């Protein structure tokens, strides 16, 4: 019974990682760029939702889409402003820029919002306790995986059943050939950033509901771990990122549940996993391409 409870917790955490990991994997699939700022984009999404809910009194089902839209705009702006001028530059230059953007967002957040954590009120519907027999679960833990699954189903539909999605898949294969076919690759890249950032915002809002303390550095660790999840699943592969996120979430929760002595090492688990994957199966679980 206890194990089942932990399993649900792991599933919840894993869905959050999955939602953030998808943004990494989509951008990496197309541009071969680790978008370091992704975790911080998620942080901005959290604050946007917080402003909507706490300052303007919007209900969560309004402030969530608004936050997603604003964050999508931010993602596109980062791409156009900071990454697009470096498309033809060595890849490391873009990576350094991404680190710079990440620090810029964090420190701007610290200047604007201050370092003091902000309380994020959980909406009523996510704050109930569901009880089945001995099993007591917070409704948030049940709803997070469900909503994640819905969002991901929608995303897969876009990627595999629409013309834009086809263009995205094509661009990730070979960007110059696709440009010759008359596809405006910049629009596709911008769309990728928009979708990825919106998902990060959604993930971030649920993250903030699970750990209801906002601070400008909250995106750093989830961001890094989500990247590990993306590599675990096979970078560039959306379904792989989902799977990787779930595995990582479950592994972390199980480590804490089964080996409480090692609980302090929880944050290191993701990186140990990463090193293991790169050593033994660098393509991840579902990936095809080899890293360089």
């Amino acid at each position: 019974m206890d194990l089942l409870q932990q399993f649900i917790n792991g599933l919840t955490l894993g869905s959050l990682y999955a939602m953030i990991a998808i943004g990494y994997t989509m951008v990496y699939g197309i541009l071969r760029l680790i978008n370091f700022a992704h975790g911080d984009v998620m942080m901005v999404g959290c604050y946007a939702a917080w402003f909507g809910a706490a300052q303007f009194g919007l209900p969560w089902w309004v402030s969530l889409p608004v936050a997603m839209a604003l964050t999508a705009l931010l993602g596109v702006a980062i791409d156009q402003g900071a990454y697009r001028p470096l498309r033809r530059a060595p890849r490391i230059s873009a990576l350094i820029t991404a680190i710079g953007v990440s620090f810029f967002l964090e420190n701007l957040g610290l200047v604007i919002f201050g370092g003091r954590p902000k309380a994020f009120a959980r909406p009523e519907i996510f704050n109930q306790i569901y009880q089945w027999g001995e099993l007591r679960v917070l409704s948030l833990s049940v709803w997070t995986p469900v909503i994640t699954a819905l969002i991901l189903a929608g995303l897969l539909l876009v990627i595999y059943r629409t013309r834009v999605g086809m263009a995205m898949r094509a661009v990730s294969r070979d960007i110059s050939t696709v440009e010759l076919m008359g596809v405006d690759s910049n629009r596709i890249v911008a769309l990728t950033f928009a979708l990825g950032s919106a998902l990060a915002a959604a993930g971030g809002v649920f993250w903030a509901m699970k750990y209801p303390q906002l601070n400008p550095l909250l995106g750093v660790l989830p961001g890094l771990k989500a990247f590990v999840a993306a590599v675990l699943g096979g970078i560039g592969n959306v379904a792989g990122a989902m799977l990787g996120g779930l595995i990582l979430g479950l592994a972390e929760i199980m480590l804490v549940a089964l080996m409480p002595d090692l609980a302090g090492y929880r944050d290191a688990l993701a990186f140990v996993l990463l090193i293991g994957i790169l050593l033994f199966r660098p393509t991840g679980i579902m990936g095809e391409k080899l890293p360089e």
Partner: protein
Amino acid sequence: MSLAGRIFKAGPLPDAAGTRRRDTWLTLAACALGGGLLWLAENQAGGYVVHMLTLSGLFVVLAVSYNLINGFTGQFSLEPNAFVACGAYVTALLTISPLEKEASFILEPLIWPLSVIHLPLLPALLIAGLCTALMAFVMGFPVFRVRGDYLAIVTLGFGEVVRVVANNAQSVTNGPLGLKGIAHLTNLWWAWGLAGATLFVVVRLVHSSYGRALKAIREDETAAEAMGINAFWHKMLAFTLSAFFEGMAGGLLAHLITTISPSLFTFFMTFNLLIIIVVGGLGSTTGAVLGAILFTFGGEWLRVVEEPATLFGLDIPGIPGMRMVVFSLILVGVMLFARQGILGRNEFSWRWLLARLGMGRGRA
């Protein structure tokens, strides 16, 4: 001599023996002048200036050795905070007196051999450097199986792991409480002495056949391997050497600020070093030195943006934390508009300086 050495033996144009002797004398004279200036600073300048000068010396060590792996070998890695942490902890654990250790390890006592050791600074620093180099050596095996941005993320992960270990290994690191009561032993001479040693070793290495092999790996690893360079061991050489110096600098840093805790060695530290070497010019030792000094003193100067100011009759309240925003904008700006940094891959040379002064024959 290694195979790589024989292939790249052609090297730069052979200097006339006289020119080389002249350069050696000039370098020695410059060292003497620098020593004199340090002596002057120590005796005449205020404590604050001395502190900043000491700190800039440590940043020179860190930047030059970080540049060896990132700039010269082209392996973009993000782990110096781990090396600095390792060096700082090892040195501090060796030099703090057993009594002091007993007093600060409240939650769990320090494990046996460390709890009784009490060494002077120099042997402690050397041991710390060797320990850090050993850590880099072990790390190198998984790290150099990947390249490019994967290498960046794996090394970043190592940095995080080291921080998590420092936070949790209570009986060695005292956990989040950190170590305190470290003697304030680092002065100008220690910092700039280590800086001089680092510069000497790194410059000699870069100008040797090994250095040329490292640059060949940076330009095109596959081609370098085809020329018979063992890329893995050359990368390992650069990595462990830079770890050795970063570890020693970490030890001196611990003895400068006298209190260390895991929160000091976050990715933030690596980020600062990254700014230094990118602004100075990736792959230029002179650039790294220049960047380090600019960063230490520029950072102080930038405090202006955090202070309250009156601009065009408008009162602007002080904005704490604004400095880091400016730093990150500088990094992005340099990448977008001046990717070469200040010096690109150019180096200082006496021939260049003499030509500038109108005393030599043409550029190097």
